[in-house]
């Protein structure tokens, strides 16, 4: 019963933060969603706001997020310096966090240089 209450409350809080966007079905597929073990955490507030990107590689973030809106551009299409400009622009457009943008940039610059 406690478990159900906790999950329900968490869902309501998340839904409010997403300004009423009802996407809980999509959440089920989230790789980083914690299973039952995580539900044992006692406190609901403060909600943990850890960036999932902390455990993701730049290549992964690049491959998964850029595809949402356009075809993937090969790292070799631009120089490392040019990628610096592009990522600043795409961070804005895609709503990336600074951490995500830095990781993607590091990957693209590294791949571009080789």
């Amino acid at each position, binding site marked *: 019963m406690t478990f159900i209450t906790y999950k329900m409350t*968490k869902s309501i*809080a*998340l839904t409010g*933060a*997403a*300004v*009423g*966007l009802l*996407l809980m079905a*999509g*959440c089920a*597929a*989230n*790789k*980083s*969603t*914690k299973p039952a073990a*995580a539900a044992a955490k006692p406190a609901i507030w403060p*909600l*943990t*706001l*850890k*960036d*999932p*990107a902390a455990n993701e590689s730049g290549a992964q*973030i690049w491959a*998964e*997020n850029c*595809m*949402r*809106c*356009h*075809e*993937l*551009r*090969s790292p070799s*299409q631009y120089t490392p*310096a*040019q990628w*610096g*400009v*592009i990522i*600043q*622009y795409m*961070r*804005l*457009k*895609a*709503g*990336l*966090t*600074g*951490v*995500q943008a*830095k990781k993607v940039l590091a990957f693209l610059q590294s791949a571009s240089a080789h």
Partner: protein
Amino acid sequence: MTHKRRILISMAAALAIMPVAAAWADPAGGGADYKKLEQKYQLLQKQMATMAKQMSAMQKQQAKLKATQAKTGATNTKAIDREVKRLYRRVMKDSQKISDLEPGNIQVLIAGDVNFQFQNVQGSHSTFYADSSPMIQVRIDKNIFVNTAFDFYTQGGAAGGSAADIGAANINYELNNNMTLGGGLITSPIGGIVGQYNPAPWNRWLVDGSLEDALLPGNELGVWTRGGLPAPDKMGYLTYFLFVSNGPALTSTTDQNGASYNNLQFGNWDPAAQNGKTVGGRFSYIPIPNIEVGYSFEWARPSADGAITTTNSLINAVDFNSYYVNKKIDGLFRFRGGWTWDQVGQGVDSTGAFSLGGMSNGGQLEVAYQPSLCGIKYIDKMMAAFRYDRIDGPASSNFSNGASHEQRYSIGLDYWLHSNAVLKFEYEFDNLSNNLHGNNAMFVQFAVGI
């Protein structure tokens, strides 16, 4: 061992920081100063390389230690984890300082797109059309970014007719990990679709779209804050984009049935048109990278020349964007959709009587499939696309919404020559209200992103 390592790291960090600090304190100007700066830069690079090696060695050692501890059952790796993280942060910070010292650290990039098309729309002469939209993007430093975009295109009505437009002129300041502040002219986030497509025909699957053409604002001229942040408990990401900009102007338009209605005219850059400002924004939730769902709104108190003084307007929009790529389906499946409803509230004319009101609805659904993983040459670069879109136009009366309707079914076949070069063929079936036959259209377009 740990203590020794800490001392080593501290010494290396101090060595790295000292020349950087000296370089920053050194007043610029003169050849001698430049040589000094160059020497410091080279020294700093060497020191950074040493630090990177040390970090790499530590990481290897850390991995070994973890493996050993896993075997023996010990779990206390926190201290070494902290040290590695601290060193990593220091290396990243110093790397940034080095890149700031590098010659040409203000970067300029010419981007944008070019496209040309042949179009044959019923009721009009067929024509070729060309469009060039260059963008100048400048990275001033790691926090400041400037973007300018133009649009040059051919236009009928006069021999050699062409038109020029400005698509973006904005300055952005990255305040922190989750927030950027900006101002100027920027693509509107309302409805999601315009923002995702812009600036490009090169990443569209189909040529035209009535939702973006008729209902959604294209640009906002104002100030904004935007960014992304992780959703609680690692359940994806949230993005936001909030702005204050010039409000839409209110204009009178006549639909195909001859009815007159009031229309919101976006892209209002003229203070003479009206003084009202608009407040709007878009929020989206990305539970997994493949899916994004957004909600946007834009509220304004527009006014117009003539009898109508003021009224309220509100745009609401929801949008959905997703893709799925898997060997099981031999490729890539894309799905985008959106629905928008504009409400122009009751206005008050010069006599005090209520005068207008109306609602416009519209939406579109787009699906596309590309067998990119099928392994068959040429076929793997083809994409089939379909779109349904509709507009229920505003009524002349507040009590009979939807005086005019238009529905379009579009089918398209694209061939991707490159990740940013696409050749498209599209045919649109157009239907109007009262069973009127619309203007079917055929397009062939070649678009390249720069």
